[in-house]
């Protein structure tokens, strides 16, 4: 095992009832790497991310984050989750809280920050992502793109060492996708280690340091974006990319 890896996954298995979703995932992610998970709907991308955050208990295998096995029995899941930020497709902001409250809730409760300190940090982050005029707004009154940026800031406020993004642009109107992708690009430029499930192939090509193709619960093929998109080795990968390209043409 690579001791300097930010994230190490070995033989990860997960099924829901009789439905086997992850059938032995092996993946090693170095510091500052940006892994893009691609694959058809139902290939297990979301489930993998939820397992990494311990939102889903795994059936078998190990997950090691910064040298600590987080899948061992008796691990403090709350402490683990504080180091791993996750952003969901449907934003999942807290509708009864303002943007500022959404962002400061976890730092205050989970990290024990004082309100003033947490709010100051939140304002800096919101400002950085162009949301300084939305501090007092409630989620209902933000556009989808703004909501998703707030959700990213909310995860960042915990200062995670790893960010998981689960198809964060899939629920957005096309004209709002760019503003969210820009934010993610900025994070990547800042050296954030990320695992990103995405349908945006152009984005994966631009931002990914490595692209993994998930098929039937396994990582069928992985490699640098250039190689994956220009000369995929596996037939299944070729077929998947073909379908995506032709779908875009129509």
């Amino acid at each position, binding site marked *: 095992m690579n001791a300097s890896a930010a994230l190490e996954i070995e033989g990860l298995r997960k099924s829901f009832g009789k439905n086997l979703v992850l059938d032995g995932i092996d993946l090693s992610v170095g510091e500052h790497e940006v892994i893009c998970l691609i694959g058809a709907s139902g290939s297990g991308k979301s489930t993998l991310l939820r397992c990494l955050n311990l939102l889903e208990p795994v059936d078998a295998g190990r997950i090691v984050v910064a040298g600590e096995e987080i899948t061992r029995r008796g691990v403090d899941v709350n402490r683990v989750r504080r180091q791993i930020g996750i952003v969901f497709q449907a934003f999942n902001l807290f509708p009864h809280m303002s943007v500022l409250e959404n962002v400061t809730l976890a730092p205050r409760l989970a990290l024990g920050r004082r309100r003033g300190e947490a709010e100051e940090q939140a304002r800096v982050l919101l400002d950085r992502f162009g949301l300084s005029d939305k501090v007092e707004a409630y989620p209902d009154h933000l556009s989808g793109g703004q909501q998703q940026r707030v959700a990213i800031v909310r995860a960042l406020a*915990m200062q995670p060492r790893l960010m998981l993004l689960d198809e964060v642009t899939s629920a957005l109107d096309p004209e709002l996708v760019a503003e969210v992708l820009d934010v993610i690009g900025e994070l990547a430029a800042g050296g954030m280690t990320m695992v990103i499930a995405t349908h945006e192939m152009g984005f994966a090509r631009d931002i990914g340091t490595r692209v993994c193709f998930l098929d039937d619960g396994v990582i069928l093929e992985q490699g640098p974006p250039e190689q994956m998109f220009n000369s995929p080795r596996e037939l299944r990968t070729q077929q998947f990319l073909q379908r995506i390209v032709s779908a875009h043409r129509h």
Partner: protein
Amino acid sequence: MAVEGDRRADTEVTEPRRSRILGALSSGGDGRRAVAVALLSTLVFLIVVGVVVTHSPGWHEVRQTFFDWPYFKASFPEIARAFLLNCKIFSISECLILPFALLLAVLRSLPGPVFFPLRALAIVYADFFRGVPTILVIAILGFGAPALQVSGVPTSTTFWGIVALVLVYSAYVSEVYRAGIESVHPSQEAAARSLGLTRGQTLRKVILPQAVRRVIPPLLNDFIGLQKDTALVGTLGAIEAFQQASIDTNATFNYTPYLVAALLFVAITIPLARFTDWLIARDRRRRQAHGAFA
């Protein structure tokens, strides 16, 4: 002089209402017609009902036994004083029901096999106390508990009446809370837990605030029921409004005191309903206040 003053006060009360209706009348063709039709049909209906009732063979006697002004005036002060006991029972019960029912609802929503005994307990509790008529619970506790003559246990009928109402209404209110908790989408819990919040923090800060907001109207509905059911404590002998009215009617064979008691109950429950509407509207306004969509 006094009559003059009364009449002036009357016109002051009705003036704003009339102007609002007139405003609606003049607001546009379709709206004006709809309001006019509604007003006219209501008016015709009320006149018909009024004529039928006042021309019925027994009207003269009914008016004397139920709508007698001298009896109304005479019985009002004592019944109003007794009604304070209803308000006291209601207020104390409500303060106990809100947290107790919430505890029951939370117990019932605990996941996993570890908490099965607590979940089962909460389910049995809700089933039992929703199944037994309130008046029976009141009678059993109110007559039974003091009869035990255990030292230190209160013998006050009001005390046991309150205990019975809290037990029964907590079962109903816990179901209302539970519906609210279950209406909050699981993704909200996932989001909170993913940030490292504990189960308890998630419940307190994310799930319950959303759940409670959604169930305020049905909660109020239960509390209007509770306010009315305080009259059942009178069956134990506590002199509350209904019991006082019964005493008055038994002495005079005139039922106007019941009308007094009924009006007193309505005087509390209607403002309660308006207050809740106001709370909901305020919450909506607050959320929309910062709604500049840019």
